[in-house]
């Protein structure tokens, strides 16, 4: 991977400039950040948002050992050996996380899952997994983010709060850009926010519709009905959704008048009552709208490379997440093979957690199980998950220390331009060693 470094003509010769570096903090994956690097610190991150700046500035190399076995410092080789023994010896090993590392590392991790006959699952199962399932039901009409910038004249955010979660989405993709067919930028667009509470994103919207909590599905079906021209009972619609029918009718009129409408939906939709049915309702509505005009939908993906994880798991196994390989071939069943479930039911007997912190955010039952089984953790930082791991590897941070590929929320693959070296190995390096060893152990079992 090339590292674009240009000697700056600025007075400080010790400054290294990395042009067009990529921020992996959120699914926007902004690739236009100019980093100024002094030794092993990033001192400036031009164009980065508040989240991006904190990502770049607060990254300092961890002084922890590369590897800890049961909390004691160990060599990487010893860590790999112990990890391989755990994974190869388990009956129901699971691999989880993956959304904050490179595709190169993800590919090796899924390979390990195959060799050990385990489970492979990503953080998708706890964020946009329902959207993935809805997608399998109805499909999706979508586009790359540049299409929204160049054509999108009606932008609807539903259950997402980009002002806080994806700060540059407005300026870079969805609201502010002067596009090919929208020469006046923001003035040529209408922005609608639908949410259960008035978030900071409401300030950016022309219209805010506050719906009742857990009524997204009903609201979306009101729009589907209005698209078809069906007559609805105003009183019950308002009672059910919390928004007057006239406001829904106004929104539908705007949707039909738009030349290129967009619905960007977030976890406010996918992780509330209805889950995949909510996502399915959005996708179906947008599909319906293409009988009247051009309309697209897009989930607002969170983690820097969760979209890459979906892609890698799909191309290697045929399924996007929640994949089980214990019978020697891939099977898919969300709810059965998803990590929160295999842990909470006490099925998994060993685990490898990559770039994720389930010990901080899973259910009590899942955490109790994870704490009770041997597991391996790879993370640049110390987390509740690394602290309780049998084998913990401290790894280099993707995009800051390591090159590789990440996929933006619209599936566009983008290269990383690291700023400085880390004393720690990359996820890819650790996983590659582990894959070699696991394969050996499994082959020995076969021969034996």
């Amino acid at each position: 991977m090339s590292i674009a470094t240009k000697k700056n003509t600025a007075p400080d010769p010790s400054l290294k400039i990395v042009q067009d570096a990529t921020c992996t903090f959120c699914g926007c994956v902004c690739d236009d950040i100019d980093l100024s690097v002094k030794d092993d610190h990033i001192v400036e991150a031009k164009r980065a948002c508040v989240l991006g700046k904190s990502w770049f500035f607060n990254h300092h190399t961890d002084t922890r050992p590369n590897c800890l076995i049961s909390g004691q410092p160990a060599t990487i080789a010893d860590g790999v050996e112990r990890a391989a023994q755990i994974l190869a010896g388990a009956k129901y090993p699971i691999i989880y996380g993956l959304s904050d590392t490179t595709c190169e590392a993800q590919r090796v991790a899924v390979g390990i899952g195959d060799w050990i006959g385990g489970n492979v699952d990503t953080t998708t199962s706890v964020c946009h997994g329902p959207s993935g399932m809805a997608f399998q039901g109805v499909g999706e009409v979508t586009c790359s983010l540049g299409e929204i910038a160049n054509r999108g004249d009606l932008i609807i955010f539903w259950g997402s709060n980009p002002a806080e979660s994806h700060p540059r989405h407005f300026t870079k993709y969805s609201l502010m850009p002067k596009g090919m067919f929208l020469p006046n930028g923001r003035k040529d667009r209408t922005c609608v926010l639908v949410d259960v509470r008035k978030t900071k994103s409401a300030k950016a919207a022309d219209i805010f519709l506050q719906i009742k909590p857990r009524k997204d599905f009903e609201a979306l079906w009101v729009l589907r009905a209005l698209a078809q021209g069906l007559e609805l009972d105003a009183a019950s619609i308002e009672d059910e959704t919390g928004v007057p029918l006239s406001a829904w009718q106004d929104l539908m009129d705007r949707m039909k008048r738009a030349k290129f409408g967009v619905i960007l939906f977030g976890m406010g939709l996918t992780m509330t009552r209805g889950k995949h049915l909510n996502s399915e309702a959005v996708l179906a509505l947008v599909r319906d709208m293409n009988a009247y005009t051009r309309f697209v939908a897009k989930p607002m993906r969170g983690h820097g490379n969760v979209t890459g994880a979906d892609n890698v798991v799909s191309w290697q196994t045929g399924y996007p997440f929640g994949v089980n390989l214990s019978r020697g071939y891939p099977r898919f069943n969300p709810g059965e093979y998803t990590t929160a479930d295999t842990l909470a039911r006490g099925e998994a007997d060993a685990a490898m957690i990559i770039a994720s912190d389930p010990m901080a955010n899973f259910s009590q039952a899942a955490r109790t199980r994870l704490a009770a089984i041997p597991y391996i953790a790879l993370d640049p930082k110390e987390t509740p998950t690394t602290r309780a791991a049998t084998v913990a590897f401290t790894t280099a941070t993707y995009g800051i220390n390591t090159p590789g590929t990440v996929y933006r929320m619209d599936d566009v693959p983008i290269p990383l331009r690291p700023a400085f070296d880390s004393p720690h190995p990359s996820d890819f390096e650790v996983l590659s060693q582990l894959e070699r060893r696991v394969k050996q152990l499994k082959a020995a079992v076969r021969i034996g």
Partner: protein
Amino acid sequence: MTSSLFKIAGGTVYDPTNGVDGQVRDLWIADGRIVAAPTDPTVRPERTLDASGMVVMPGGIDMHCHIAGPKVNVARKMRPEEKRVAEKVMRTATTHSGTMGSVPSTFATGYKYAGMGYTTAFDAAIPPLAARHVHEEFDDTPCIDKGFYVLVGNNHYIMRAIQEQEPERLKAFLGWLLSAAKGYAPKIVNPGGVEVWKQHQGGNVHSLDSVVEHFDVTPRQIIRGIALAAEELKLPHRMHIHANNLGLPGNWTTTLETMKALEGHGGHLTHIQFHSYGGGDGDEDTFNSKARELAEYVNSHPNITIDVGQVMFGKTTSMTGDGPLGYYLSNVYKSKWFSSDTEMEAGCGIAPIEYKNKSLIHSLQWAIGLEWYLMVEDPWRVVMSTDHPNGGSFMAYPQIVRLLMDRTWRNDVLKTVNPLVLERSSLGDLDREYTLNEICIITRAGPAKILGLKHKGHLGVGADADITIYTPHDNKEVMFELPRYVIKAGQMIVELGEIRDPVRGKTLHVSPDYDHGVEADIADWFEKYYSIRFRNYPVTEDYMHEHETIACEE
């Protein structure tokens, strides 16, 4: 790679490029290539494979399939329902597991192509913005060499260069784009039509002279402009064309106009079966075959080559860079539908479909494909394809071989399809049967020549030692579906369908000479309209794994 000598002894060799038609020959291999037999009779090979009684051919080449990249991967995600009932690809000590169905996972794709004796395949429709994705998937697609075609028929920069009558800028841009994507050839999909689809509900162009709004260009101008640029760049495969109006009754006139629009320049019309329909106005009762009329034009115009896009009965997935076509198909089938528009470049449509032998339309599509194989006189200009998975899986190739080589069986199958086919096509009147030599041409020697791959598709000295060895059988489907041995770059990779050595295979791409002065203008355009930075767009050399640059020369 070993430099040791490997001899394949006494096989019945088919090597049409070198005029060998079923003669018993020895083949000598060193360093992954075919070498001359040693002149010193005391030289012994380190290994010898006795191929006596067996049929030896170059490895198969699929020049038009959809096996990697964003569209294929979306289709994998979208179709879990077909995988649980499909064949299971089990993990072994050295090979990965995978899933089948109409859109196999990456490892499974490599293993299955190799298991069937194919050693090279080209994905036919990649938006260059997603080139990196394809290269990543290729690296997980073992056993075969692979490359891809770059979607250019609705590219904004190209349409603007045509509008502004700047052929030199178009040429430089095309050279830059192919190099940046590390792609193999320019691909035109529904030229102009995809851009109209992005602009309007149900939008499309309907003839070669429809005007594309905003850019003020026509499909005819796009075809001509790119054909000229490809010729001047000396691309090994000039231009791969998916014409306008795919699948629509009466589209054969558009196809004929597309051939004429080439004005003698080289061009390959792909999945031509889907473009050979008579009838009109969406009236099913008028739907009929125009293969004969179009084949006559192809027969008299040597600048044109085609692949068929054979339809096979059963369930599959339609996937295309033709956005409006995806919309059309999803409405016909009332199925789930995926559509994605890529900024500045391309579209995409995906929908599950099924071809039924009771349906007149589907039966005619099947028959028209076969008519094409049987009506093009020169086998060097017609290539076997199913447009995998659009007409059917690549796994159907052995069955197509049997349909072409065995007239009796063909006529038996013809009796099982909708009987009106006999009136609406001339398949029942065609009694041509392909020879083994001709099969060898339309599945390897021909596509290699059309692709400009001088070291593939033949067994002469210097050729890649990609070799498939079959056990002869009266039933040609049986013979071709399970080769006895498959050798890739001199390595034995398959024995009777079992993967022995899952070599990675390499990526084939071009790097044409172009005027680098154009890059400043492209960079400006990029910063204005693209959502990623110019600097982050090209796939750099160090990104590539095993790969080979195919020269651009006459």
